[in-house]
């Protein structure tokens, strides 16, 4: 540990060494500890643990104690806590999903808040680089199909291996977005139009709800030169309609400018669906997928308002969050286009 390490990092390193020692059963030291991302309330750190002569490349995901942001309109009560996320990741990894392998949870004696440690996976999540930089040329041709295959695996996870999760269907999801608007107390005509359109066309709930990732999109997975290496950000996981994930990954905002490639900016819907079906996912009904894509577009638009609200309400002071409010109109443009295509 260097003498220049900031106080927070020093606390984390000391506690992590103790926790890693407990897990590996031998005294451990921590090297290369680095904060990766996240706000004050949800953090990701990467580090190496040296235990019994072996080096383990690891990642810590934690909610620091006493830094928890007051629950706001953007933090639904259904967002997973770290303990549940740990168990979902363990079940998905065991089912053969390309997800990080979780190793152990923090305990209250660690004093680091709620969190867990998983193996570090190679690759980057930055959409702009994956979509445009030379090293990812080959990967770009594969990612749409890989996203379909991996999603089929996620949806095939045995529900009996999962911790208790909420079940959400189309009707409940529409109602939840309307409540979101009510909390914001804003007049949002385009979103109201789209929500009524959705409400009138709700697909029936699936007979057997499956594990839905809930935030399956470009930006939330790691990829390297060979394509997707790991699916991240599982805190929106729930039980529900598998097509919800297939719609969300095609929302135009997740194409990051590659607008003619609906599958996350990397391929066509047909490519995505064919790979999903080949890998054992159910037959994709295009009308149901379109419904969930429209839903996802409204959802992201309302999340934009909610992110801005975190700043406007005084919960956090952040110009970056405030500026996201002005992105909501992008989804209004997309919604009018989507509804016109349907007509």
């Amino acid at each position, binding site marked *: 540990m260097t003498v220049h390490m900031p106080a927070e990092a020093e606390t984390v390193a000391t506690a992590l060494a103790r926790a890693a020692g407990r897990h590996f059963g031998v005294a451990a030291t921590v090297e290369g500890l680095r904060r990766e991302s996240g706000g004050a309330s949800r953090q990701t750190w990467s580090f190496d643990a040296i235990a019994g002569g072996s080096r383990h490349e690891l990642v810590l995901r934690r909610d620091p104690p006493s830094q928890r942001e007051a629950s706001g309109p953007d933090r639904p009560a259904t967002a997973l806590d770290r303990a549940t996320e740990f168990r979902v990741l363990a079940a998905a990894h065991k089912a053969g999903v390309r997800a990080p392998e979780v190793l152990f949870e923090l305990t209250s004696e660690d004093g680091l808040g709620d969190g867990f440690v998983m193996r570090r996976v190679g690759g980057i999540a930055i959409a702009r680089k994956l979509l445009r930089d030379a090293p990812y040329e080959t990967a770009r041709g594969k990612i749409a199909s890989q996203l379909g295959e991996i999603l089929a695996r996620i949806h095939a996870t045995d529900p009996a291996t999962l911790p208790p999760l909420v079940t959400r269907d189309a009707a409940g999801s529409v109602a939840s977005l309307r409540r979101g608007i009510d909390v914001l107390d804003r*007049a949002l005509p385009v979103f*109201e139009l789209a929500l009524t359109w959705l409400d009138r066309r709700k697909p029936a709930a699936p007979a057997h709800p499956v594990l839905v990732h809930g935030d399956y999109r470009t930006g939330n997975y790691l990829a390297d030169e060979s394509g997707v290496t790991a699916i991240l950000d599982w805190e929106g996981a729930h039980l529900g309609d598998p097509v919800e994930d297939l719609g969300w990954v095609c929302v135009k905002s997740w194409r990051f400018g590659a607008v003619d490639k609906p599958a996350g900016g990397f391929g066509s819907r047909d490519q995505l669906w064919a790979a999903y079906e080949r890998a054992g996912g159910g037959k994709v009904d295009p009308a149901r997928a379109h419904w969930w894509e429209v839903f996802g577009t409204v959802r992201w638009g309302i999340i934009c308002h909610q992110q801005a609200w975190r700043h406007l309400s005084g919960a956090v002071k952040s*110009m970056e969050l405030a500026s996201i409010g002005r992105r909501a109109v*992008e989804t209004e443009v997309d919604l009018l286009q989507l509804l016109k295509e349907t007509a």
Partner: protein
Amino acid sequence: MAQDRPTASELLAAIADLLRDEVTPVLDKAEPRLGFQMRVAVNSLAILEREARLGPVADARERERLVKLLGREAALDELNRELADQLRAGARDERDAALMAHLEATVADKIAIANPKWK
């Protein structure tokens, strides 16, 4: 009383130019996290520059269309609330050509300010 030149739009453009061309490169070297934040700020200043230039006319046109659509005079926010209520209740929907023309025009004016490159 009219303010002297520069106009709000001209001043905002001058600030954005300075921050983008001279301050951001220095921050990128010294403190990348702040360099990123500065890019976000410059982008927001560009939105404000366009809003100062285009916003007042866009708001006036939006209100004019709403008055025609809803058949009464009121402030812009009040009219939008009435329209939002009608849309939630399903009293109007996407089959209403006048409604859709209004929403298309409103969203076109908004995106021209918030992100003219969006397509």
